[in-house]
């Protein structure tokens, strides 16, 4: 009974995904009738310049926000280990809230915040700018990268902090004892020890940003990320081309997630020595 139930759950969960993957290889146009195996839709995707533009945008945003989130999240995690008491509780709370708040809330909130700020700032800029063409702040790369960084930073903080907590403190002391000053110790001991977690954090952030539709939809302004492009094309009907894009995105994300998982697992094995 329970087994049948779980089988049904998995069927509903993965059935549609399996269908998308299957029909991305359909030689025909229909999304209901599999006519034969073909890679023509993948070829078509590779030649679609709108899609490629969106892909480029997505990769740029994902890379930038993941890099920023990784650097800032790692720094935050390192700093937080020295913070104790109520301040720590507040920071921890805010970190977890950032992860749990739905994307749509982050999207709307960021949109409102940025629009308000930009309007005010643009008014000021128009006043003080010496020429007639003052620069205008607007939605675009900046806003979407900022919104993604904000969210994924919390992920990095949580992952890196877990690694810091699992790290043997005596390694730091051993390094200090062996004449390495705090900076040399950080470079030669702390950072290599944290590297797997930092890299895993980067991969997760990258995947998150690459896959995100909800937040990007609100703050991307005129930009088209890949998920936004897929969404807008779908309104013109589901084509096997969309299936191919979806399958490609899914494979890419799975590889990234798998890589991150592998890194996080390897660190715990090594940590035991």
């Amino acid at each position, binding site marked *: 009974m329970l087994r049948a139930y779980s089988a049904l759950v998995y069927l509903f969960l993965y059935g549609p995904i399996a269908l998308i993957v299957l029909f991305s290889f359909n030689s025909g146009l229909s999304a209901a009738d599999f006519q034969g195996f073909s890679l023509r839709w993948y070829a078509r995707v590779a030649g679609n310049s709108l899609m490629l533009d969106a892909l480029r945008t997505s990769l740029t945003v994902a890379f930038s926000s993941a890099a920023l989130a990784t650097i800032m999240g790692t720094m935050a995690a390192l700093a937080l280990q020295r913070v104790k008491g109520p301040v720590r509780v507040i920071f921890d709370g805010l970190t977890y809230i950032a992860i749990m708040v739905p994307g749509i809330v982050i999207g709307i909130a960021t949109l409102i915040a940025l629009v308000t700020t930009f309007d005010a700032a643009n008014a000021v800029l128009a006043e003080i700018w010496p020429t007639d063409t003052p620069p205008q702040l607007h939605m675009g790369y900046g806003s979407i990268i900022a919104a993604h960084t904000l969210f994924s930073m919390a992920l990095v903080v949580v992952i890196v902090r877990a690694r810091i907590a699992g790290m043997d403190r005596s390694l730091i*002391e*051993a390094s*200090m*004892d062996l004449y390495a000053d705090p900076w040399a110790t950080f470079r030669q001991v702390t950072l290599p020890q944290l590297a797997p977690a930092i890299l895993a954090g980067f991969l997760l952030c990258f995947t998150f940003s690459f896959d995100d539709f909800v937040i990007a939809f609100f703050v991307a302004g005129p930009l088209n990320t890949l998920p936004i492009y897929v969404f807008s094309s779908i309104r013109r009907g589901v084509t096997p081309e969309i299936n191919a894009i979806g399958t490609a995105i899914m494979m890419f994300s799975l590889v990234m997630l798998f890589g991150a998982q592998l890194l996080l697992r390897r660190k715990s094995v090594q940590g035991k020595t």
Partner: protein
Amino acid sequence: MGVTSWTEPKAAAAARSASAPADVEFRSVTKRFGPVVAVDDISFEIPRGSFHSFLGPSGCGKTTSLRLIAGFEQPDAGEVAIGGRSMVGVPAYRRPVNMVFQHYALFPHMNVADNVGYGLRQARPKLDRAEIDKRVAETLELVRLPKMGARRTWELSGGQQQRVALARALVNRPTVLLLDEPLAALDRKLRRDMQIELQNLQRDVGITFILVTHDQEEALSMSDTIAIMRDGRIVQFGTPQLLYDAPVNRYVADFVGESNFLAGKVTATHTNGASITLSNGLALKARWSAAGEHLSVGEDGVIAVRPEVIGLWPVGRASADLDLRRQGQVRNRIYLGDHTEFSVHVPELGELMVRLPKSDPLAMSLQPGDMAEIGWRADQALALRAT
């Protein structure tokens, strides 16, 4: 045994510390952790080139003392000096000491050679790569791990990891080598080997070794001097022989070696010793410990008798020159190879531990349940403060 012979070890220790300058010195050092006073106003000197141990139960302040020397902790009051130089405000990475950590703390992301060469690589101006390699190889040879440089640390056995940790510290030729319970994680046989090896190594390299341990046997067998600690204070500082033969109080006598303790009140004193009356009214004589305080009449005291100074005879056969003779029943017998330990129940004294050498014919013949006679001379028992 005359009283003069007991003072000899103390004189020898004094002579040694006068001839060698102090390598590590504590001047009224206090360290608190919140409300807990981990190290309470202690002062001592460890002479250059000696093997010193801090011995005590966990929480006695021995590890904190070591960490104060290493520079991982800063004293709240007082001053630590290394090699005659005050270490106030000197961080761990600028101190001429190196530590072997309890769980070795080898860097898991480096191989053996990189671990050992870590300290040398921090030197500024930079040392030659070839010079570093040479010294690493030499030191690995010294700890009997030649050609192991390319191994990963986790591939090594506990004893080998221990040697790598030792090499990593020694390669820097520190003024003082600190050892934080370095043998605790090894099995008994290996521990014994490493003890001997550490001693030999210390003699070879000639630098000061400071060991923290809760294992009295380890401290006794390896050290030139031992500081017995309790509640952040040094209870007694001296050579192993002094601590064993002339403990200052019951705590030291209990911690160093084994003793039978008979508690009572001091009822009479004289120059060489005291009479202590047990709660059952039996008065026993004992002499003062050469390093201990003299108690006054009315104070609580204990008679401490080492198991090997108590004689054991068949009933009626005890020698005549004893100050105390009693009959008792053998309750238990533990064969320990070179000697045998008996637990003998004596009506007025309770359970006593008696140790007979293998050569004593009684060691093999006496069985649990047998009656026997025990006894000792008053100059072999010590009258000690009961704390």
